[in-house]
């Protein structure tokens, strides 16, 4: 018998109350229970970064938080970042730079890159690489991702 607990949290601006199993992690709750499948699941142990999303203003691993821990939190998934326009410039830059191929890492990569841009990060390629070092991409070799982030910081993208 799985232990459950009722949590109330805000997801992409909407207040949600749900009974969840204690052992359910946040990303599975968002994808499986709420149907928000934009943020991906990769390794399930915090290494690949595909599940990166925003909890209470910080980008974190969705697979390393149990949904019960997020009780009372403000969550923004990749859908939320798109809806409110926050990720618009980065998405456009990713397209222009061809910074994705299969797209599996892209939601997490956008989330991590957005934190860098929004925190006033410089167009410094090594600093950008360091910031996205927790996000695996097996297609691009990262160069195009780094260029896309630089384009946004240096204002070369219009949306």
């Amino acid at each position, binding site marked *: 018998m*799985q*232990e459950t*607990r009722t949590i109330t949290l805000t997801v992409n601006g909407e207040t949600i109350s749900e009974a969840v*199993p*204690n*052992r359910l*992690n946040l990303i*599975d709750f968002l994808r499986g229970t709420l149907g928000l499948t934009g943020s991906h699941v990769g390794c*399930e*142990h*915090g290494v690949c*970064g595909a599940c*990166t999303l925003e909890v209470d203003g*910080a*980008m*974190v*691993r969705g*697979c*390393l*938080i*149990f949904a*019960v*821990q997020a*009780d009372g939190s403000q969550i923004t998934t990749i859908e939320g970042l798109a809806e409110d326009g926050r990720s618009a410039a980065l998405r456009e830059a990713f397209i222009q730079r061809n910074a994705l191929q299969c797209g599996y890492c892209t939601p997490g990569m956008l989330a*991590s890159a957005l*934190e*860098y841009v929004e925190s006033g990060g410089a167009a410094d390629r090594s600093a950008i*690489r*360091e*910031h996205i*070092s*927790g*996000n695996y991409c097996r297609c691009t070799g990262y160069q195009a991702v780094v260029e896309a982030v630089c384009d946004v910081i240096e204002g070369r993208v219009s949306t």
Partner: protein
Amino acid sequence: MKAPDFRYTRPVTMAEALALLGDEENEASPLAGGQSLVPMMNFRMAQPEILVDLGALKELRGIENADGGLRIGAMTRYAELAASKLVSERAPLVAMALPHIAHAAIRNRGTIGGSVALADPAAEMPAVLQALDARIELVSASGTRTVPASEFFLGMYETALEEGELVAAILLGPVAAERRFGFHELARRHGDYAMAGVTASATARPDGTFVDWRIAHFSVADCAVRATGAEAALEGAKPTDAEALEAAKEALSEIDFSADLNASAKTKRHLAGVVMTRALEGM
């Protein structure tokens, strides 16, 4: 890979948390940032019956001035340490180590107390705290005690924590203006577990020589270890003194090097000397 089932509690008072952790009827585990515990649960390396989430305990958070030094609450997140002016001013070695601890998203959740309590042999903080002569404040239902960092880390995931005890805070003494610090680690990819790393502190004298060395290696043995032989070899020498450095590298033989997935014990022995040389170059 999903975590096994568990009971979940989120106490709002220390008394409640300590009662839960001290209850011998249950196998309770504190949950700090969860950046190591949750993966360990997913791998079934850890299967606590009860998780005591420390996230609501405000008294475990924050960075305070303490007699010219710092008192860092155990639940203070790495990202909070990195953003703190107090930390960069009064604990520069902590600030030097922070960018090497995993990745930004992990640092947004991971806590200093969690790292200390876990005592992962590859973690930076246990070595940093030994090089700073830090003290660890432990709390349980029966009271509070402090243990020097040099006596706290006992082995692989093994610490001086007793049943029902919790890491409450990290205590750092004031830092003299002449104190210098060094840090270096080698990792295959930025933010990965180190293949070998070192932390160092020493007092610079006007003639350029350094005394009162503290050197602690991590990710080379079962736990972070002080390199006391190397410290003795460097006493009174300049960090760039080739002869003293050779003797210090030689003295690293006292460490009981152990292999991991990254490298053999022999390679670790070699890398321990490499990181020490590079850390000293920066002092």
